[in-house]
């Protein structure tokens, strides 16, 4: 066990080390404050702000969409369906399968939906694909915390004459808020780092775009394009971009921890 832990930790350090060692020299203020200038991929000036902005917009949009659909589903599974419900079990198994489906499939599926809706490669298209990708993960994560809510707590709310809706939104959501926050951030993290689902759906652009219907750049694709060039200094920038992505995810999980401790103070054990 110790050995496995050591191997895992070592690999993790190796990955981080590679990113830092290779990326740090290329990291500059320009990287995070400028969009690519002409000839960027040939070693020209500029940065990857386009991809940072694009990825944040995409992951945030997809997280919001998944949350809006996902939270009610998780609550439905636990509060409206009973503990022994066959339907709930079927839905859970289906969600677990969906969690395991490779992200390229969601990309392809998102692409099909886009064709059907007549949307071209754009932020919106990406949000559809990434939402599909992260929703099952988010729902199952929320499901697990809602499942732990003591039945007596729900009864305590019923016993003062609250109905199911009030109980769900005033008691269950409050009790599980820390878990919901971490589930959403988990989804966000999964969404921001995924390349395959955005490959066909978001397109790519060197401009900083905020429009839902325009293509946007994303960090994973920016890394992919930069690594794909034959020039070592551009490849270094790919590592720098990976470093930036890693930092974003790190900040995210730290803020998750902070928010959990902050909103967890009312939780009843």
């Amino acid at each position, binding site marked *: 066990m110790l050995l496995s832990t050591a191997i895992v930790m070592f690999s993790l350090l190796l990955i981080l080390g590679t990113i830092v060692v290779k990326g740090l020299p290329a990291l500059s203020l320009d990287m995070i404050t400028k969009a690519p200038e002409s000839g960027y991929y040939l070693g020209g000036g500029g940065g990857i702000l386009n991809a940072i902005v694009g990825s944040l917009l995409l992951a945030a949009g997809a997280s919001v969409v998944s949350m809006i659909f996902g939270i009610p589903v998780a609550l439905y599974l636990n509060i409206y369906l009973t503990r022994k419900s066959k339907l709930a079990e079927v839905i859970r198994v289906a969600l677990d399968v969906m969690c395991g489906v490779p992200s390229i499939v969601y990309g392809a599926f998102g692409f099909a939906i886009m064709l059907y809706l007549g949307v071209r490669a754009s932020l919106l298209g990406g949000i559809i694909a990434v939402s599909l990708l992260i929703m099952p993960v988010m729902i199952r994560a929320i499901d697990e915390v809602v499942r732990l809510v003591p039945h007596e707590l729900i009864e*305590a709310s*019923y016993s*003062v004459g609250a109905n199911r809706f009030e109980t769900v939104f005033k008691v269950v959501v409050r009790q599980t808020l820390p878990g919901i926050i971490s589930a959403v951030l988990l989804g966000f993290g999964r969404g921001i780092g995924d390349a395959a689902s955005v490959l066909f759906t978001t397109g790519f652009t060197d401009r900083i775009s905020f429009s839902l219907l325009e293509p946007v750049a994303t960090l994973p694709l920016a890394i992919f394009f930069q690594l794909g060039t034959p020039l070592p200094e551009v490849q270094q920038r790919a590592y720098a971009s990976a470093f930036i992505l890693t930092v974003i995810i790190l900040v995210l999980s730290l803020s998750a921890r902070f928010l959990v401790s902050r909103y967890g103070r009312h939780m009843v054990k």
Partner: protein
Amino acid sequence: MKNRTHISVENLNVYYGDNQVLKNVTIAIPDKTITAIIGPSGCGKTTLLRCFNRLIDTVDGIKVTGKVLVDGDDIFDPQQDVTAIRKKMGLLSQRPFPLPMSIYENVAYGPRIHGTRKKNELDVIVEKYLKMANIWDEVKDRLHEPASSLSIGQQQRLCLARGLAVEPEIILADEPTSALDPVSSRNIEERFMELKNRYTIVMVTHILRQAKRLADYVVFVYLGELIEHGPSKEIFENPKEQITKEYIKGIIS
């Protein structure tokens, strides 16, 4: 017993799946006193209590036949507004479960749901019922702290205040002191003695001495059947049924 009481039960049968746990129970619970439901473990005391406010509904595979009348209305009638029934009764459970919010919010929760929104009105309500539950002095300087930061004994009194705040006529309690230390138990018992002139209190207990101390009326349940009920004195000093006698003497438990 023809005079109408808040709670009366007629031919009540409850099944968990195929397992019948209450058998043809008929009883009228006297108003404005303490009624204790006693009986050995697993005999259906909790089940009976949970029929009164229909929390039993939340159990999978439950089947209920017969009637529970609360103020003359059959509460298992599908037409009944279950929230209105529950509002008439405060509930104390075996272990206190404060809601995941502040002390103040716990007491204000019920009144808010039932339409009291104004801050100053809620302030008055919160203070009044925290005082009634004898916990005001301990929490008045920390009303906005999480309820979960209170001790278990304090939490149980907070739950009492939360139940009282919706102005019920009935208090249901399922072994309300079994998780508490002796001092906290004493405190809850004293609250019950103070409240019994104004509320109809029904408590489940497996502590015979507690039933003797508090109850005016005793209901003895054995293996899902209502064996005997009557004024506390009668049941404890002069039980009619052999089995009640044995239970009270501690021969069966």
